[in-house]
């Protein structure tokens, strides 16, 4: 693997004594007040990991409860568990996952910049995230919330007896964290590209994060104001969503999904970016149809705003609106499919090696395809009536968000781990974890498609006994999945101290981030690089020497 490395540059002396991990000092203070995008990315990664395990613990309890038809927990506790799982996983893991960790770390490196455009805003964004996170955990500890992550009115605004206002405040605050990150990425991508780094020379990862940022900046404020309206309504007992006053609860759903459907693309688009980096590298081929991949990301970020009411087909919207949104929802499948075809075509006749990042990437392509295709099922008005609020929908969006996004997250984590830490992880353990995650995931969620189709409703703590067999499969799969998720925690932690030194470019990958030592110095590059070639120049030509 490491034969075709950077020519003209000695590889090994870069055991980098002078790198971002040590250069600013190693005190806690130097970390908490840092403005370095790489350090902030590390702060994010650590905090996200905590929330991932909090959300995962809730998921474990949910699957435990569903082993028996009668359930283990009281309905009230069960409601709080799935709400906790939803809120934590959506806003404290999935939305910030790839952008705030890898995006933060890599975007300046990939475009040849010294930092993001607004380093202080970047740090503020992390503090907002942490403040919001503590608020959410506090709300959970003192009693929890039972509304579901969707906060549907008038239940959330008038009837729920959970700590709804606290949870709303937490999500409100984390929303601004996400807006600041998006704003930072947009300005950085426009204004800080190195000389010669034209738009069509940007790695797809940067494009994807750019498209994601557009959604963050334009959709999140609508969520913020909507949640504010709910909180005020709950505190004052009067508001625009209360049907008894002549208000409209569906207005809440329109506003909520105006954010929350595009938010699905916030969660998946950065994943597309990661896969577009990994697949060419481990197939040793340029990315097939670069411009199509790029523009399909942009198309998704725009069209993603046109489809929100497909969450409301049975909620009482007009049939005409249902028709419009159903058609638009089919349209968004086109750019997603383009990406899958492009990755497949990149693999075609490639020189494929099955290293851990590639295993995650291949898993992603398969699982995302299943998730995407079942998305077409639920975009269909008639079929959606049958499966609304069943486990079919649960399985569908977990295939996208867990099968897709979390696989991409782990794939990216492994792919850039040597860059971030300067160490290599143990390859075989990583492959085992990747396979466990893939099989565990399918065993968990495929039965849920069947359960949903058979009519098992989501969000109930109990179910009719005839569904038990499938539920046991699902819970068994969840335990395999849990092992798969815990495993990297150990071997990656081990590699921090005992892993082999990685060198600047262990995968012989293209891209500016591999031209700088691992771990990179605080200001990323000694000299601002000049770019002369398009990205992904694998195999056909020797490594570009444009630094």
């Amino acid at each position, binding site marked *: 693997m490491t034969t075709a490395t950077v020519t003209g540059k000695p590889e090994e002396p870069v055991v980098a004594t002078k790198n971002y991990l040590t250069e600013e000092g190693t005190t806690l203070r130097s970390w908490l007040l840092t403005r370095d995008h790489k350090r902030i990315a590390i702060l994010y990664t650590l905090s996200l990991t905590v929330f991932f395990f909090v959300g995962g613990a809730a998921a474990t309890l949910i699957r435990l409860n569903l082993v028996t038809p009668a359930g283990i927990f009281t309905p009230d506790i069960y409601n709080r568990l799935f709400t906790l799982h939803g809120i934590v996983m959506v806003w404290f893991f999935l939305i910030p996952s790839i952008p705030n960790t890898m995006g933060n770390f890599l975007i300046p490196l990939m475009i040849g*910049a010294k930092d993001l455009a607004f380093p202080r805003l970047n740090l503020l964004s992390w503090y907002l995230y942490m403040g919001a996170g503590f608020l959410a955990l506090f709300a959970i500890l003192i009693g929890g919330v039972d509304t579901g992550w969707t906060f549907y009115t008038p239940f959330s605004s008038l009837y729920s007896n959970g700590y709804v206002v606290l949870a709303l405040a937490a999500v409100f605050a984390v929303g601004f964290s996400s807006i600041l990150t998006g704003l930072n990425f947009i300005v950085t991508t426009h204004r*800080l590209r190195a000389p010669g780094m034209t738009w069509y020379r940007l790695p797809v990862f940067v494009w994807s994060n750019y498209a994601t940022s557009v959604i963050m900046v334009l959709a999140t*404020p609508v969520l913020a104001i909507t949640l504010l309206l709910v909180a005020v309504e709950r505190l004052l007992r009067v*508001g*625009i969503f209360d049907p008894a006053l*002549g208000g*409209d609860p569906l*207005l809440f759903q329109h506003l909520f999904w105006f954010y929350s459907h595009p938010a699905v693309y916030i969660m998946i688009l950065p994943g597309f970016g990661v896969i577009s980096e990994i697949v060419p590298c481990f197939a040793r081929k340029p990315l097939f149809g670069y411009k199509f991949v790029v523009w399909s990301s942009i198309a998704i970020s725009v069209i993603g705003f046109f489809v929100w009411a497909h969450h409301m087909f049975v909620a009482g919207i007009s049939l005409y609106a249902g028709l419009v949104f159903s058609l638009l929802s089919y349209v968004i499948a086109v750019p997603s499919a383009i990406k899958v075809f492009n990755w497949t075509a990149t693999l075609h006749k490639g020189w494929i090696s099955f290293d851990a990042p590639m295993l995650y990437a291949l898993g992603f392509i398969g699982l995302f395809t299943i998730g995407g295709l079942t998305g077409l099922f639920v975009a269909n008005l008639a079929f959606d009536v049958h499966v609304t609020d069943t486990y079919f929908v649960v399985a569908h969006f977990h295939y996208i968000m867990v099968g897709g996004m979390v696989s991409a997250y782990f794939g990216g984590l492994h792919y850039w781990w040597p860059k971030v830490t300067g160490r290599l992880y143990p390859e075989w353990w990583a492959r085992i974890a990747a396979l466990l995650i893939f099989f565990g995931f399918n065993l968990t969620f495929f039965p849920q498609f069947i359960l949903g189709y058979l009519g098992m409703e989501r969000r109930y703590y109990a179910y009719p006994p005839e569904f038990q067999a499938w539920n046991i499969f699902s819970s068994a799969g969840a335990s395999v999945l849990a092992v798969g998720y815990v495993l990297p925690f150990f071997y990656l932690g081990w590699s921090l101290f005992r892993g082999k030194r990685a060198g600047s470019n262990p995968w012989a990958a293209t891209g500016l981030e591999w031209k700088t030592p691992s771990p990179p110095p605080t200001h990323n590059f000694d000299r601002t690089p000049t770019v002369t070639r398009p990205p992904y120049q694998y195999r056909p030509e020797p490594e570009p020497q444009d630094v």
Partner: protein
Amino acid sequence: MSDATPHPQPVPRPEPQYATMDQQAEAASFGMWVFLATEVLFFGGMLLAYAWLRASHPDGVAEAGRHTKVVIGSVNTLVLLTSSLTMAWAVHAAEHGRRTALTRLLAVTALLGLLFLGLKGYEYHGEWAEHLVPGLNFQENGPHARTIELFYFLYFLLTGIHGIHVTIGIVLIAVMAVRARRGAFSAGYFTPVEVTGLYWHFVDIVWIFLYPLIYLAGRSGP
């Protein structure tokens, strides 16, 4: 840096991630525009709620609109429009490096902002006295009572959130005024003033739309 000159024209060095001050200025101004796009959508949610209320209960909204204090609202519009003028003027003064003028114009802008808030507070006081505050002391009878309550619910949220924006703007402008007085800006460097100005004009634009929606609803009716 350039301590040699008797009247230093401070042109700070760019932050490490920028090559030039121009690049930094462009990034700051573009960043503010992106933020303003966010703000458009932030107010947009409430405006959609307003549109829905007005479309589904036109008579109630018309009656509620006639309860609002159109004189204060109109004077306040004039105040904000004028403050936008002084702000634009201040940026112009900054461009030409006129420090005293810049300081004074920023101060006037901030004072106009305070005047706006004062009038708004007086208006709120009147509404409290008339029992028009939903959830706290709302009392209204008649066929449209509930629509009037929802109208005032949105009224207080829209004007309240706008008021928070005005307050933030006043603080920013005051900071700029102090910095200008201390000579932080010059014809070569005044990006913070310019960016603050963008924010202030945006707050003005929001009010330009709130004014007819709140104060002019139902005026042509009985």
